[in-house]
């Protein structure tokens, strides 16, 4: 079934066009499916244009085993959410109301409400460039989900990592079903609507939390002093912070803050690859110990603790007076690789090495790293700029496909054929530098 879908990815447009041209008359031709990018954009825009109400089934690791959880999900445009958990028994009655600014979680069993920051910021974000850089986005055709036609889109990471498939409703762009697949353990998360109804206007009252009589309220706003840059975070933390601009496998700094919980102060750094997120928490080494659970692993020859929660993985280690905790959904090996590089200061070593090998100012390498480029990408861009006599940013734009060969040829003042030869030579040369550096 997967093969059929994959084969159907591009062909239908052509087939449809041919059929339409060849047909003498009769039935109007089915519209050509939009490009994958258009479908993703449709999904991204959907929350802003439509309200819905449905029953969602989640199958995911929980409490050490795979559980199926049912919830009634309500969405009001642009970014309000209401979730009523129905089963299993231990979550039945749980209510989450998020008005786009504040999220309330109410637990009737304890008559307790937890107030925290909104979980819906992603609904208003529209930038897919990071995702395109780190994922192969493939259209897998269309399928029927609960009686509705849906585009199937696969997001597969360029490196090892979790891939995701989305079933996107043709009519509304709403994601009807998702599947996350971990290379080492198969499908780790499935969510789908078993029933959904769309509306143009759900009552706002659904999305306002009313505190039940006598309920206890716990305020859980652990993140304060949102700081935009890694440097600002370092200044505000009050202790020396390790802030790598980028992490391996394309994770780029996407935000952070200082988190205070009781007297535990930690710096929270977020790195995104466009679809998946890695959080790095740093606290002074003495302020928190390793948990009593999890398994002992080694990072760079030093002891570390890995807590595998089935979906989330947590890696904890100490480094130069800091207690570091990395949380993400990527494979354990990726997490260990990231920790190892942080521990060895390999980032600095690699940056230095690349700048030496391709004879470019270290500042240029550092700047490109902060823009999210990998070392091979930087090497290629620098070599290309040197070979063609163009500036580095132009080379980057060309390598990222934002500049066509013709446009580049025009800027470099050569014929496209000459340019293509030059590009191939430059890339060949760059591959001998690449990430295979003497740092091993």
């Amino acid at each position, binding site marked *: 079934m997967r093969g059929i879908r994959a084969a159907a990815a591009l062909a239908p447009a052509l087939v449809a066009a041919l059929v339409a041209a060849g047909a003498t008359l009769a039935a109007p031709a089915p519209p050509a499916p939009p490009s994958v990018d258009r479908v993703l954009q449709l999904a991204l825009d959907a929350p802003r244009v439509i309200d819905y109400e449905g029953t969602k089934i989640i199958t995911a690791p929980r409490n050490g085993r795979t559980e199926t959880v049912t919830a009634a999900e309500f969405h009001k445009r642009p970014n309000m959410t209401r979730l009523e958990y129905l089963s299993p028994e231990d979550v039945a009655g749980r*209510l989450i109301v998020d008005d786009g600014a504040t999220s309330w979680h*109410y637990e*009737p069993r304890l*008559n307790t409400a937890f107030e925290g920051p909104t979980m819906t910021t992603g609904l208003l974000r529209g930038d897919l460039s990071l995702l395109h850089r780190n994922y192969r986005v493939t259209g897998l055709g269309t399928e029927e989900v609960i009686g509705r036609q849906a585009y199937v889109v696969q997001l597969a990471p360029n490196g090892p990592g979790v891939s995701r498939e989305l079933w996107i409703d043709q009519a509304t762009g709403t994601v009807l079903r998702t599947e996350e697949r971990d290379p080492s353990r198969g499908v780790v998360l499935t969510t789908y609507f078993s029933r959904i109804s769309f509306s143009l206007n759900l009552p706002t009252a659904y999305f306002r939390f009313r505190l*039940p*009589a006598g309920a*206890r309220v716990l305020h859980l706003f652990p993140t304060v002093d949102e700081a935009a840059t890694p440097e600002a975070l370092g200044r505000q933390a009050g202790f020396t912070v390790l802030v790598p601009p980028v992490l391996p496998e394309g994770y780029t700094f996407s935000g952070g803050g200082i988190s205070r919980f009781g007297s535990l102060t930690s710096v929270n750094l977020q790195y995104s690859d466009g679809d998946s997120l890695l959080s790095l928490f740093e606290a002074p080494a003495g302020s928190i110990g390793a948990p009593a659970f999890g398994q002992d692993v080694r990072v760079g020859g030093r002891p570390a603790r890995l807590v595998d929660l089935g979906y989330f993985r947590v890696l904890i280690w100490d480094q130069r007076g800091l207690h570091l905790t990395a949380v993400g959904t990527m494979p354990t090996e990726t997490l260990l690789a990231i920790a190892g590089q942080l521990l060895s200061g390999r980032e600095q070593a690699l940056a230095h090495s690349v700048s030496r090998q391709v004879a470019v100012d270290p500042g240029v390498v550092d700047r490109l790293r902060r823009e999210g480029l990998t070392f091979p990408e930087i090497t290629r861009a620098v070599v290309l700029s040197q070979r063609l006599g163009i500036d580095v940013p132009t080379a980057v734009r060309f390598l990222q496909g934002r500049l066509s060969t013709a446009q580049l040829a025009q800027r470099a003042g050569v014929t496209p054929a000459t340019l293509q030869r030059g590009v191939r030579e430059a890339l060949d040369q760059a591959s001998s530098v690449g990430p295979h550096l003497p740092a091993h």
Partner: protein
Amino acid sequence: MGRPAAVVSMARPNASQAVSYTTEELARYEAIVQRYARHVYNVAYRMAGNEADARDLAQETFLRVYRALRRVEPDAPLESWLYRIVSNLYIDLLRKRPRGRVESLDAPVDTPRGELLREMPDPGSSPEAIIEREQLDATIQRALGTLSPDLRMVVVLSDVEGYSYEEIAMFLRVPLGTVKSRLHRARQILQQRLGRYVEARRRGWEP
């Protein structure tokens, strides 16, 4: 969307009787917890001298409040009742516990060296000062532990919680004169056990 129900079921697994309270009653219980739990725990801790027993005592006390919730008059002061429960529970606990655990009245109380005391300026200013402060607290707590439960309860209610003789007499259902004499006796014993600290403080080594 009819949640939450007005009446929350309080089925307690393995409990013989399940209690159902209205949300108003639960709110009243929560208010009692808010108002008294910290004090009850504190008294329990100073009586028992350790966290585990203090927690048991305080939790058991509130379980009794919870069970008797319908019989508790709204807004009635509960100190008297609560401290009596704590006191009785503590005496129960001593009775059930093997004798060996009870500290001897003659057990010496260790005191830190004098020069440490001199270096104890503003508590909280340095890690050392905090550690010394905690050592002193532990020493005072151990001294309290050498008192008989009757004497200890009076000191805790008077000097830790700050109640008047009259209130203490009411809480413990003893005559006023008994409170007076127990407290005096308790302080004399404590002074003896804390001799070096008392002396250091009197000489102004410590603010």
